[in-house]
């Protein structure tokens, strides 16, 4: 049986590891290489690294740093942040990244997703979308590069991304990010209803029960940030990951 994946999601800023709260106030939580080594030892299912500054400052990925990450990862590594061309994606694959996560590039034009999928296969492209509720409580597509909500039919965009060749969809609930308050299950259900490819849900995990609930709502995989880097009510930095048997029993 295929087990639903549980994926630590690490955020990079100025080459350091940070954790955000609702996509704001990035707080330094440590050295990324050290964190990746620990996650590797804990035999995590997969690792997702997002450079949250690259697209904002219109800069390319930091290839040297990512190559160092890949050398420590004996599990799949997905990277997102600042990828604007097939050439850049190719360079990432050649240094040991399995999949690229594309947001800003996909919002601009899905041709990039298509071009990468045609050359390197669907499994190599993840389309990453951030969703934020507006004042009326409606889900809106959110651009993490500009910090603005976009007036686009995002469920339609997911379908178009799948047609363009995306191999997975990553959905992050901006309002839940870093809150440890549980995932937005109705958002996950909404996406799952139109998503024929694996769906990675992110935003809000604060317990193992939250992971299970997300899977029940239709997620193929769950990405967690704060849950795996903070410990206790005062948010002390401590890297953790559940034992394999624990996850198997949880997600059976």
């Amino acid at each position, binding site marked *: 049986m295929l087990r639903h994946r549980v994926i630590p999601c690490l955020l990079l800023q100025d080459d350091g590891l940070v954790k955000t709260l609702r996509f704001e106030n990035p707080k330094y939580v440590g050295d990324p290489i050290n964190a990746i080594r620990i996650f590797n030892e804990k035999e995590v299912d997969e690792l997702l690294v997002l450079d949250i500054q690259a697209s904002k400052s219109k800069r390319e990925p930091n290839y040297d740093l990512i190559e160092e990450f890949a050398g420590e990862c004996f599990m799949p590594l997905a990277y997102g942040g600042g990828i604007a061309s097939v050439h850049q994606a190719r360079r990432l694959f*050649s240094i040991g990244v399995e999949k690229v996560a594309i947001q800003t590039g996909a919002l601009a034009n899905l041709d990039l997703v298509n071009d990468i999928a045609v050359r*390197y296969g669907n*499994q*190599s492209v993840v389309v990453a979308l951030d969703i934020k509720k507006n004042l009326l409580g409606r889900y809106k597509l959110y651009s993490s590069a500009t910090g603005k909500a976009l007036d686009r039919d995002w469920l339609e965009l997911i379908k178009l991304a799948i047609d363009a060749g995306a191999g997975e969809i990553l959905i992050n609930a901006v309002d839940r990010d870093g809150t440890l308050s549980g995932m937005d299950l109705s958002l996950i259900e909404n996406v799952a209803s139109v998503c024929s*490819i694996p*769906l990675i849900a992110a935003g809000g995990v604060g317990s193992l029960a939250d992971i299970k609930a997300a899977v029940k709502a239709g997620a193929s995989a769950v990405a967690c940030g704060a849950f795996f880097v903070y410990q206790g009510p005062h948010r002390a930095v401590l890297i953790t990951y559940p034992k394999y048997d624990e996850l198997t029993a949880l997600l059976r």
Partner: protein
Amino acid sequence: MSIIIVDYGMGNIASVGNMVRKVGGCAKVSGKRGEVMAASKLILPGVGAFDHGVNQLQALGLFSAVQEIAARGVSILGICLGMQLLSKRSEEGNLGGLALIDAEFKRFLFDNKSSFRIPHVGWNHITVVKKNPLIPNEEGEQRFYFTHSYHAVCRYEEDILAKTEYGYPFTSAYCRDNIFGVQFHPEKSHRFGMALIKNFLEL
């Protein structure tokens, strides 16, 4: 002794090299026909489309090189697309594969109401179905990372090394004599993959 990881422009080569180093081996990444012809062992990795892979091998003069060293008895390990290229054909493409294993690849087929999504991505178990040197100890858990939409269908049952369940049981590894193919990614499968790669290097 020269262990060659074939670089034919099809994706993630670095991970395989990292894993070989991790288990204490030494491999050279090469896309040169001469070096492939002189390999004592060959790892054929790769992700992407079947026909593109065939074309890339042919353009580099590697298609016939791999077939020739296979005939000489050199051990070959195909991973993911590399496994698929060892077969005769795939539904994904129109070109012929290396035909070192009598198998073809079919796309996962589920009905619309099925909860099984394609591609098959994530960690899954394998069940070893015959004695083999890659995974000699079939007892205990064997889990690996998969990411693929097509799976092998072997003409000869005896070529099947391992099976995995995704909607239905499919062939997740095959071997015949010196030719081995695994659909999953040992280079991305923690200690399970390390053991497999180590066993291949020690063949």
